[in-house]
């Protein structure tokens, strides 16, 4: 029997979530929904924050088993701050992503978690890195992940343009999250967005009733 229909359990072993990270002119926006669910039947938290700060200008968000993700990010946070102290300078985003990649690749049998790392550093400016399930590290201008991301591939491919302004990028990220949360039953709650630039980090929270609405709502 062919099972190639809308089965998010088979598409990737990610537990319910929608995460994304997009670079714009001068910074990067990383965003996620806020729902944690057990098996798609029970929402264990409506307001969980999946955006974890691993250093001053570097955030990461998780797709997959929350337990694995919390353990890995805790280890990664320690390693990155140690590295940053040794080097006496803020870490590169690529270094943070590499730390996560090493942890994911060396423990690939036991772990079921993928990461998106986004941040700003002095050398290359705003960057986005994906660490996939088996430990592959990939740099992209923008990336989407989690079970809800399948529904917005088309939207993201169509609407993304390089070098957007901060407002355009915020609108793009908010719309993408709202669309995914509208179609994926294991993504929902509020939209968490973090804007990272050279100047600093700004956390924007958009509650459910303020999210953009589309034609059938």
């Amino acid at each position, binding site marked *: 029997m062919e099972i190639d229909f809308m089965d998010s359990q088979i598409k990737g072993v990610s537990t319910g979530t929608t995460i994304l990270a997009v670079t714009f002119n001068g910074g990067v926006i990383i965003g996620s929904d806020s729902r944690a669910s057990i098996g798609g039947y029970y929402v264990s938290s409506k307001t969980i924050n999946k955006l974890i700060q691993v250093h001053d200008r570097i955030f990461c968000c998780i797709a997959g088993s929350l337990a694995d993700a919390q353990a890995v990010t805790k280890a990664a946070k320690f390693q990155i701050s140690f590295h940053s102290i040794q080097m006496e300078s803020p870490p590169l985003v690529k270094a943070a992503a590499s730390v996560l990649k090493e942890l994911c690749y060396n423990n690939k049998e*036991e772990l079921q978690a993928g990461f998106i790392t986004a941040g700003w550093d002095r050398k290359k400016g705003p960057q986005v890195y994906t660490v996939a399930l088996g430990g592959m590290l990939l740099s992209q201008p923008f990336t989407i992940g989690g079970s809800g991301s399948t529904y*917005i*591939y088309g939207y993201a491919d169509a*609407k*993304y343009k*390089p070098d957007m302004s901060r407002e355009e990028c915020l609108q793009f990220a908010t719309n993408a999250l709202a669309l995914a949360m509208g*179609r994926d039953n294991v993504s929902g709650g509020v939209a968490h967005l973090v804007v990272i630039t050279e100047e600093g980090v700004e956390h924007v929270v958009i509650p459910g009733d303020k999210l953009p609405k*589309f034609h059938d709502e």
Partner: protein
Amino acid sequence: MAAATAMRFGQLSSGSDMAPDWTTKEVSTGTTIMAVEYDGGVVIGADSRTTTGAYIANRVTDKLTPIHDRIFCCRSGSAADTQAIADVVTYQLGFHSIELDEAPLVQTAANLFKASCYRYREELMAGIIVAGWDKRRGGQVYTVPVGGMLVRQPVSVGGSGSTYIYGYMDSNYKPNMTKDQCLRLVSGALSLAMERDGSSGGVVRLAAISETGVDRQVILGNQLPKWSTIYLTIYPTVCLKDWRSTLLSKGLEIYPTVCLKDWRYTLLSV
């Protein structure tokens, strides 16, 4: 750790890894199909890929099947199942139309599909979108997904590639669009899905059904709408003498070790 290794071992020794997919897998229209209503008719579209596992059995399939003069269905799922159901419904609807002595309603066709899909739901794997025009209600789209539900929707997508375009469809569809806007929406959405879904591809087949008739078109691969994530495409009008400046203007660096014979392949794989 031990359990994972044992699982890997099991996979290595299973026989189906040796034989190619097309000897073991069923023919499937893993696909992307879409239908949109507008005032005066409907626009339907589909990709053109039929696969048996990883082999593309037909790269120019026509998944838009006429059921009656102004009623079409878009097929997704098992190719055999959907062809058989479409044949049965075509016969039933033709007979009904002769008895009635007038053109059948789209709702009738949709209910005939639902009757077959629901009665034999355990044996079948078919997701069908029925769309057409009739005198009573104008353009209508009915979707009959796997399992045999029937629901009318102004816009519907189906098939394995449809998951990738829900967001695009939700944000770009507005009620009361014109026929041309619908054609652009469908061809845009299908090309996005074909980019992301391995089981969808080939050409885009479109049909616009209205009172005056059925207008079919084919959009070939190189004519599809392009999006910004496709950073570099090669146009045959680029003068080969200027290839260096073309590369530099696209932001690529030129390394003297690149074999010039493979420059097209090199650019495409960047």
